[in-house]
């Protein structure tokens, strides 16, 4: 985000700068042109005035010469000839000036030539009349005509000079008008350009100050982030390092030193110094991983140990990644984490798990072997009892025979217990294979198994259509067998047993018995009987191993059967719940998860 803000701002600012610079150059050019125009027109004005002045001068010299000459004719005093004698020279000097001024002006040049001819004629005339004065012919006809000619020439000169001044003034007016239009337009244009440039500068100022504000905000966020990172490092036992690839300079965060068991900045940050802390057995691996980091400019997760100066060994998890910043500098940013606690906890847990597994296995093996091996002597006791009862009964007193019978009952009960225990331990065995099984078929098999009892009790057994589920078949067989034989066993003596199996699919959220459910849907199979029932306060006790609710003289049972049922539903991630009412009946509900 920071990068984007900065790069966008720099593009805009660069554009504004270029436009402003371009505008200023244009303004400069126009100003220069304008000023040189002004200078030119001043020059023109000055030139015109100079020419006009010079022309007036020439006229006045000529008039002075004429006057002086006339005075001389009247008085014969030669001092009056003074202006006449110098006039020629002065007129020539003025002409030189005029020629320079009129260098670029064709019309004026032509005029000057004409004027020069007139002046030459005037002076020729002077010379002619002077000769007549010298010879005292002033009253002659020739003098009179010369005198008149002089007047005509003089009038022509005056007129010519008047014309020339008028032309000069006209030309001046023309140029002035021309310049005026230029000059009128330029200042307004320049003023507008300047205003626009000023506007651009204001815009860029606004933009720069805005960006600055943004960057300040970002800087502040960065500061907060940095502080949070430092806190995180301390709590999480992380250490951070940066490797500046181009300059090969390393920086370590304060907490990296702490992870190594050192004070921040205790040694210069470098690869070699860090390696000294790495466990000697892991050093080769770390060096290799770091070399691949240099080559690939990336470091995957690696694990190694370090040894702090005080000898404590710590487990480290490390990770690094290449980062190219706004400044295009390449850095690898890396993290190390002290995971010693995790590893310790994990290995402790693993050990405990193994121990538990071992214990469990031993227990189930013990259970199996014990019940299996106990069968053999018991079978012999029973066989010997039956031998005594068959062959030796005549040698026993009635009391002895009664004792023998009691021994037989006890031994039979012990056999029952051992059989059930064996069954229970078999349910614990881990070889569980889930096979899609039609529960209707399974239940029919169970009914077959109990056919004799069913026939004897005349029990009515009904069931709704059951689903096909992926289950451990022999275990569900056992479950059905135990529940059904349970219902048959605890039936009322004077009533025909009625047992019904109901099936439905329920959502875990809608059934109060499924508070601990892990799945969404469950198959619910309910065994309802009209037997002797039980006190509801024993509903959960009923599933505990060896727990019995009824007198064993009245009802034979070991208290293992329902524990096996519980175990089987556990194995299937299901649940079993018992409800009962004395003398009304019992309801056993089995829940099996949909995705068995």
């Amino acid at each position, binding site marked *: 985000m920071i990068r984007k803000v900065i790069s966008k701002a720099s593009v805009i600012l660069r554009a504004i700068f270029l436009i402003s610079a371009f505008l200023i150059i244009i303004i400069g050019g126009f100003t220069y042109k304008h000023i040189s125009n002004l200078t030119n027109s001043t020059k023109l004005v000055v030139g015109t005035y100079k020419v006009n002045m010079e022309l007036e001068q020439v006229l006045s010299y000529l008039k002075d010469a004429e006057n002086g000459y006339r005075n001389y004719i009247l008085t014969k005093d030669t001092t009056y000839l003074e202006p006449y004698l110098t006039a020629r020279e002065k007129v020539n000097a003025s002409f030189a000036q005029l020629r320079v001024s009129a260098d670029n002006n064709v019309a004026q040049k032509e005029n000057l030539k004409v004027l020069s001819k007139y002046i030459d004629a005037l002076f020729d005339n002077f010379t002619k009349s002077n000769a007549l004065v010298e010879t005292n012919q002033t009253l002659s006809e020739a003098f009179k005509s010369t005198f008149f000619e002089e007047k005509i020439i003089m009038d022509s000169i005056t007129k010519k000079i008047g014309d020339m001044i008028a032309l000069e003034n006209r030309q001046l007016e023309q140029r002035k008008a021309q310049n005026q239009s230029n000059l009128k337009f330029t200042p307004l244009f320049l003023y507008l350009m300047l205003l626009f440039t000023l506007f651009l500068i204001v815009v860029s100022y606004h933009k720069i100050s805005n960006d600055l504000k943004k960057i300040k905000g970002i800087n502040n966020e960065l500061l907060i982030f940095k502080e949070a990172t430092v806190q995180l490092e301390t709590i999480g036992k992380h250490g951070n390092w940066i490797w500046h690839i181009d300059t090969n300079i390393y920086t370590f965060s304060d907490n990296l030193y702490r992870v190594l068991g050192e004070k921040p900045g205790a040694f210069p940050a470098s690869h070699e110094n860090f390696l000294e802390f790495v466990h000697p057995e892991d050093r080769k691996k770390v060096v290799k991983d770091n070399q691949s980091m240099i080559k690939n400019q990336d470091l995957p997760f690696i694990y190694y140990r370090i040894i702090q100066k005080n000898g404590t060994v710590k487990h480290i998890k490390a990770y690094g990644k290449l980062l190219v910043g706004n400044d295009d500098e390449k850095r690898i940013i890396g993290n190390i984490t002290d995971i010693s606690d995790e590893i310790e906890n994990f290995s402790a847990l693993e050990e405990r798990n193994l121990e538990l597994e071992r214990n469990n296995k031993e227990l189930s093996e013990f259970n199996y072997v014990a019940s*299996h091996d106990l069968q*053999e002597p018991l*079978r012999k006791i029973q*066989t010997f009892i039956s031998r005594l009862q068959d062959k030796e009964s005549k040698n026993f007193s009635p009391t002895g025979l009664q004792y023998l019978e009691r021994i037989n009952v006890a031994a039979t009960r012990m*056999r029952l217990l051992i059989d059930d225990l064996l069954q229970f331990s078999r349910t614990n065995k881990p070889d569980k294979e889930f096979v899609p099984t039609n529960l209707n078929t399974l239940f029919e098999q169970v009914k077959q198994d109990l056919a004799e009892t069913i026939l004897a009790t005349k029990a009515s057994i009904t069931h709704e259509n059951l689903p096909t589920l992926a289950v451990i078949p022999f275990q569900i067989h056992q479950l059905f067998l135990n529940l059904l034989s349970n219902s048959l066993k605890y039936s009322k003596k004077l009533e025909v047993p009625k047992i019904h199996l109901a099936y439905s699919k329920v959502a875990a959220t809608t059934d109060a018995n499924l508070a601990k459910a892990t799945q969404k849907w469950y198959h619910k199979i309910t065994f309802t009987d009209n037997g002797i029932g039980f006190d509801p306060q024993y509903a959960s006790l009923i599933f505990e191993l060896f727990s019995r609710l009824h007198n064993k003289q009245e009802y034979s049972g070991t208290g293992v059967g329902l524990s096996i049922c519980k175990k089987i539903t556990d194995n299937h991630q299901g649940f079993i719940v018992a409800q009962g009412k004395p003398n009304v009946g019992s309801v056993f509900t089995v829940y099996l998860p949909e995705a068995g």
Partner: protein
Amino acid sequence: MPNDYIHIILADDDEDDRLFFVDAFEELNMNTKVNTYNDGIELMAYLNSEGALLPQVLFLDLNMPKKNGIECLNEIKANHKLSDIAIAIYSTSASEEDIEETFVLGANIYIKKPSSFDDLKKVLSEVVSINWQYHTNGLNKDNFLLRM
């Protein structure tokens, strides 16, 4: 057939069980001749000896020292001279694994030692009266274990 009696052999390391076995046949009075051996090694030594009289039915305990019932079963089935003997497994336990293994190895019936003498007599008389030809043809995993 040269002899009109039924020749039966039992291999069992348990003295009491051998006693019950012999007593039961005595009381059954079925014209049987019963030989017993104390373990697998004795049994195999007899069967492999020259001129041994092979039994019609061999009762084989599984859990015996030195050479157990499974090993004997293996050897008998591998030997074409002995492989036709009808073999009844005669064991204290009836674990799924044992039943499965002996069935696969070719035993003909599995008997769980009963816990009363009357039951024992019933079981033995039934086994001896089986028509092995007929029984073996219809043999499957479900009727392999003898249920009373």
